[in-house]
Protein backbone atom coordinates (compact mmCIF):
# COMPACT_ATOMS: atom_id res chain seq x y z
CA UNK A 1 0.00 0.00 0.00
CA UNK A 2 1.48 3.33 -1.02
CA UNK A 3 1.15 6.67 0.71
CA UNK A 4 -1.91 7.90 -1.25
CA UNK A 5 -3.75 4.64 -0.86
CA UNK A 6 -3.10 4.70 2.87
CA UNK A 7 -4.37 8.26 3.16
CA UNK A 8 -7.46 7.45 1.16
CA UNK A 9 -8.25 4.42 3.26
CA UNK A 10 -7.65 6.25 6.53
CA UNK A 11 -9.76 9.19 5.45
CA UNK A 12 -12.52 6.97 4.16
CA UNK A 13 -12.68 4.45 6.98
CA UNK A 14 -10.39 5.31 9.90
CA UNK A 15 -11.51 2.48 12.15
CA UNK A 16 -10.87 -0.32 9.68
CA UNK A 17 -7.22 -1.15 9.49
CA UNK A 18 -6.41 -3.96 7.09
CA UNK A 19 -3.02 -5.72 7.38
CA UNK A 20 -1.46 -3.81 4.47
CA UNK A 21 -2.39 -0.51 6.12
CA UNK A 22 -0.96 -1.66 9.43
CA UNK A 23 2.26 -2.43 7.65
CA UNK A 24 2.32 1.01 6.05
CA UNK A 25 1.55 2.80 9.30
CA UNK A 26 4.45 1.09 11.00
CA UNK A 27 6.85 2.74 8.59
CA UNK A 28 5.10 6.08 8.05
CA UNK A 29 4.79 8.38 11.10
CA UNK A 30 2.83 10.98 9.11
CA UNK A 31 0.16 8.50 8.10
CA UNK A 32 0.11 7.12 11.66
CA UNK A 33 -0.49 10.61 13.01
CA UNK A 34 -3.14 11.18 10.34
CA UNK A 35 -4.80 7.90 11.31
CA UNK A 36 -4.93 8.94 14.98
CA UNK A 37 -6.41 12.33 14.12
CA UNK A 38 -9.01 10.83 11.83
CA UNK A 39 -9.95 8.23 14.43
CA UNK A 40 -10.57 10.98 16.99
CA UNK A 41 -12.48 13.01 14.41
CA UNK A 42 -14.56 9.99 13.48
CA UNK A 43 -15.46 9.40 17.14
CA UNK A 44 -16.56 13.01 17.42
CA UNK A 45 -18.63 12.66 14.28
CA UNK A 46 -20.29 9.53 15.65
CA UNK A 47 -21.12 11.19 18.97
CA UNK A 48 -22.49 14.24 17.19
CA UNK A 49 -24.66 12.19 14.86
CA UNK A 50 -25.95 10.03 17.68
CA UNK A 51 -27.20 13.15 19.45
CA UNK A 52 -28.57 14.79 16.32
CA UNK A 53 -32.14 14.25 15.15
CA UNK A 54 -31.83 12.00 12.15
CA UNK A 55 -34.35 11.92 9.37
CA UNK A 56 -34.10 8.75 7.37
CA UNK A 57 -35.58 8.63 3.93
CA UNK A 58 -38.46 6.23 3.21
CA UNK A 59 -37.63 2.62 2.31
CA UNK A 60 -36.38 2.23 -1.20
CA UNK A 61 -34.41 5.44 -1.17
CA UNK A 62 -30.97 6.08 0.16
CA UNK A 63 -31.06 9.75 0.93
CA UNK A 64 -30.95 10.78 4.55
CA UNK A 65 -30.92 14.18 6.14
CA UNK A 66 -28.88 14.81 9.24
CA UNK A 67 -29.24 17.96 11.25
CA UNK A 68 -25.80 18.87 12.55
CA UNK A 69 -25.27 19.55 16.22
CA UNK A 70 -23.48 22.80 16.91
CA UNK A 71 -23.46 25.39 19.60
CA UNK A 72 -25.30 27.75 17.29
CA UNK A 73 -28.94 26.71 17.90
CA UNK A 74 -28.95 27.68 21.56
CA UNK A 75 -27.46 31.06 20.75
CA UNK A 76 -29.92 31.48 17.89
CA UNK A 77 -32.82 30.58 20.18
CA UNK A 78 -31.61 33.12 22.73
CA UNK A 79 -31.28 35.73 20.02
CA UNK A 80 -34.74 34.89 18.66
CA UNK A 81 -36.21 35.05 22.16
CA UNK A 82 -34.60 38.43 22.74
CA UNK A 83 -36.02 39.64 19.44
CA UNK A 84 -39.53 38.50 20.40
CA UNK A 85 -39.16 40.11 23.81
CA UNK A 86 -38.29 43.38 22.14
CA UNK A 87 -41.33 43.25 19.88
CA UNK A 88 -43.58 42.30 22.78
CA UNK A 89 -42.25 45.21 24.83
CA UNK A 90 -42.76 47.62 21.93
CA UNK A 91 -46.31 46.36 21.38
CA UNK A 92 -47.09 46.72 25.08
CA UNK A 93 -45.80 50.30 25.14
CA UNK A 94 -47.84 51.12 22.04
CA UNK A 95 -50.99 49.60 23.54
CA UNK A 96 -50.55 51.44 26.84
CA UNK A 97 -49.93 54.69 24.97
CA UNK A 98 -53.11 54.25 22.93
CA UNK A 99 -55.15 53.52 26.04
CA UNK A 100 -53.68 56.55 27.81
CA UNK A 101 -54.41 58.83 24.86
CA UNK A 102 -57.96 57.51 24.62
CA UNK A 103 -58.57 57.83 28.35
CA UNK A 104 -57.01 61.25 28.75
CA UNK A 105 -58.39 62.74 25.55
CA UNK A 106 -60.33 66.02 25.92
CA UNK A 107 -63.95 65.17 26.62
CA UNK A 108 -66.15 68.15 25.86
CA UNK A 109 -69.47 68.55 27.61
CA UNK A 110 -72.67 67.76 25.82
CA UNK A 111 -73.63 71.44 25.75
CA UNK A 112 -70.33 72.32 24.11
CA UNK A 113 -70.79 69.61 21.55
CA UNK A 114 -74.30 70.83 20.76
CA UNK A 115 -73.16 74.41 20.32
CA UNK A 116 -70.36 73.24 18.06
CA UNK A 117 -72.79 71.08 16.15
CA UNK A 118 -75.41 73.69 15.43
CA UNK A 119 -72.83 76.06 14.02
CA UNK A 120 -73.21 73.90 10.92
CA UNK A 121 -76.99 74.40 10.96
CA UNK A 122 -77.05 78.10 10.31
CA UNK A 123 -80.36 77.92 8.47
CA UNK A 124 -82.13 76.66 11.56
CA UNK A 125 -82.42 80.24 12.89
CA UNK A 126 -82.74 82.18 9.68
CA UNK A 127 -85.50 80.19 8.03
CA UNK A 128 -88.86 82.01 8.03
CA UNK A 129 -90.91 79.42 6.19
CA UNK A 130 -92.57 76.80 8.35
CA UNK A 131 -91.91 73.23 7.42
CA UNK A 132 -94.86 70.95 6.94
CA UNK A 133 -96.06 68.84 9.86
CA UNK A 134 -95.36 65.75 7.79
CA UNK A 135 -91.75 66.78 7.40
CA UNK A 136 -91.41 67.42 11.12
CA UNK A 137 -93.06 64.13 11.90
CA UNK A 138 -90.79 62.29 9.52
CA UNK A 139 -87.69 63.93 10.99
CA UNK A 140 -88.68 63.04 14.52
CA UNK A 141 -89.71 59.56 13.54
CA UNK A 142 -86.16 58.81 12.45
CA UNK A 143 -85.15 59.30 16.07
CA UNK A 144 -88.09 57.34 17.38
CA UNK A 145 -89.99 60.27 18.87
CA UNK A 146 -93.16 62.24 18.12
CA UNK A 147 -94.09 65.87 18.69
CA UNK A 148 -97.24 67.77 19.55
CA UNK A 149 -97.63 70.10 16.59
CA UNK A 150 -100.04 72.36 18.45
CA UNK A 151 -97.12 74.21 19.97
CA UNK A 152 -94.68 76.51 18.19
CA UNK A 153 -94.31 76.72 14.50
CA UNK A 154 -91.29 74.77 13.39
CA UNK A 155 -89.16 76.59 10.85
CA UNK A 156 -86.46 74.00 10.61
CA UNK A 157 -86.43 70.24 10.92
CA UNK A 158 -83.41 68.08 10.36
CA UNK A 159 -82.03 64.77 11.52
CA UNK A 160 -78.50 64.94 12.87
CA UNK A 161 -76.02 62.27 13.74
CA UNK A 162 -74.90 63.49 17.12
CA UNK A 163 -72.65 61.55 19.49
CA UNK A 164 -73.53 58.38 17.72
CA UNK A 165 -77.28 58.96 17.82
CA UNK A 166 -79.75 60.19 15.27
CA UNK A 167 -81.10 63.32 16.93
CA UNK A 168 -83.98 65.45 15.66
CA UNK A 169 -83.11 69.12 15.48
CA UNK A 170 -85.79 71.72 15.05
CA UNK A 171 -85.67 75.47 14.74
CA UNK A 172 -88.48 77.66 16.03
CA UNK A 173 -89.31 81.33 16.06
CA UNK A 174 -90.37 82.75 19.40
CA UNK A 175 -91.32 86.29 20.36
CA UNK A 176 -87.93 86.60 22.07
CA UNK A 177 -85.96 85.20 19.16
CA UNK A 178 -85.08 81.99 17.43
CA UNK A 179 -84.45 78.79 19.28
CA UNK A 180 -83.04 75.36 18.57
CA UNK A 181 -84.43 72.22 19.99
CA UNK A 182 -82.60 68.94 20.00
CA UNK A 183 -84.24 65.80 21.23
CA UNK A 184 -81.46 63.75 22.79
CA UNK A 185 -81.81 60.49 24.58
CA UNK A 186 -82.39 60.64 28.33
CA UNK A 187 -78.80 59.59 28.93
CA UNK A 188 -77.50 62.60 27.07
CA UNK A 189 -79.85 65.17 28.53
CA UNK A 190 -78.33 68.10 30.39
CA UNK A 191 -79.37 71.55 31.52
CA UNK A 192 -80.38 74.02 28.79
CA UNK A 193 -77.57 76.04 27.32
CA UNK A 194 -78.03 79.73 26.45
CA UNK A 195 -76.71 80.98 23.16
CA UNK A 196 -75.75 84.50 22.20
CA UNK A 197 -78.30 84.67 19.39
CA UNK A 198 -81.08 83.00 21.20
CA UNK A 199 -81.82 80.09 23.41
CA UNK A 200 -81.18 76.46 23.01
CA UNK A 201 -83.16 73.91 24.91
CA UNK A 202 -83.27 70.22 25.42
CA UNK A 203 -86.72 68.92 24.76
CA UNK A 204 -88.12 66.42 27.14
CA UNK A 205 -90.24 63.60 25.93
CA UNK A 206 -92.17 61.12 27.92
CA UNK A 207 -93.95 58.20 26.43
CA UNK A 208 -94.88 58.22 22.79
CA UNK A 209 -95.54 61.96 22.65
CA UNK A 210 -92.62 64.32 22.62
CA UNK A 211 -93.42 67.93 23.49
CA UNK A 212 -91.13 70.97 23.60
CA UNK A 213 -90.83 72.61 27.00
CA UNK A 214 -91.57 76.23 26.42
CA UNK A 215 -90.38 77.29 29.83
CA UNK A 216 -86.83 76.48 28.77
CA UNK A 217 -87.27 77.94 25.33
CA UNK A 218 -87.97 81.32 26.84
Amino acid at each position, binding site marked *: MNHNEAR*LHIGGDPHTVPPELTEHLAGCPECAQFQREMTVLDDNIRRALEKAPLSVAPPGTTAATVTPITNAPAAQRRKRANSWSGWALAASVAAISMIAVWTLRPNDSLAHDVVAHIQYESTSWSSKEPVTPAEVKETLARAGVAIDMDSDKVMYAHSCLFRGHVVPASGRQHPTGPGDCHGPSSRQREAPHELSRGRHVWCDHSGPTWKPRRDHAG
Partner: protein
Amino acid sequence: MQVLGGFSTAEIAEELSLSSTAVLTRLFRARNKLRTMYGLTPAPDAPDGEGVL
Protein backbone atom coordinates in the same frame (compact mmCIF):
# COMPACT_ATOMS: atom_id res chain seq x y z
CA MET B 1 -24.33 4.71 6.65
CA GLN B 2 -20.80 4.01 7.78
CA VAL B 3 -20.76 5.85 11.09
CA LEU B 4 -24.30 5.24 12.32
CA GLY B 5 -25.34 2.22 10.31
CA GLY B 6 -22.07 0.35 10.64
CA PHE B 7 -22.02 -0.50 6.96
CA SER B 8 -18.65 -1.53 5.53
CA THR B 9 -17.18 0.22 2.54
CA ALA B 10 -18.14 -2.68 0.30
CA GLU B 11 -21.72 -2.68 1.55
CA ILE B 12 -22.04 1.06 1.00
CA ALA B 13 -20.59 0.71 -2.46
CA GLU B 14 -23.10 -1.97 -3.32
CA GLU B 15 -26.01 0.02 -1.88
CA LEU B 16 -25.07 3.17 -3.75
CA SER B 17 -23.86 1.43 -6.89
CA LEU B 18 -20.40 2.87 -6.52
CA SER B 19 -16.92 1.42 -6.42
CA SER B 20 -15.24 0.94 -3.06
CA THR B 21 -12.66 3.54 -4.02
CA ALA B 22 -15.40 6.05 -4.83
CA VAL B 23 -16.97 5.46 -1.43
CA LEU B 24 -13.63 5.89 0.34
CA THR B 25 -12.91 9.02 -1.68
CA ARG B 26 -16.21 10.63 -0.77
CA LEU B 27 -15.85 9.74 2.88
CA PHE B 28 -12.27 11.00 2.84
CA ARG B 29 -13.35 14.33 1.38
CA ALA B 30 -16.25 14.66 3.79
CA ARG B 31 -13.97 14.08 6.77
CA ASN B 32 -11.45 16.48 5.31
CA LYS B 33 -14.11 19.18 5.20
CA LEU B 34 -14.94 18.47 8.82
CA ARG B 35 -11.24 18.72 9.70
CA THR B 36 -11.22 22.14 8.10
CA MET B 37 -14.35 23.13 10.02
CA TYR B 38 -12.69 22.00 13.25
CA GLY B 39 -9.72 24.20 12.42
CA LEU B 40 -7.38 21.34 11.69
CA THR B 41 -5.08 21.30 8.71
CA PRO B 42 -6.85 19.42 5.95
CA ALA B 43 -5.10 16.40 4.57
CA PRO B 44 -4.05 16.39 0.93
CA ASP B 45 -7.08 15.75 -1.19
CA ALA B 46 -7.91 12.25 -2.24
CA PRO B 47 -6.65 11.23 -5.64
CA ASP B 48 -8.87 12.32 -8.45
CA GLY B 49 -10.86 9.85 -10.44
CA GLU B 50 -13.27 7.94 -8.28
CA GLY B 51 -13.21 4.29 -9.08
CA VAL B 52 -9.69 4.28 -10.50
CA LEU B 53 -8.43 1.90 -7.91
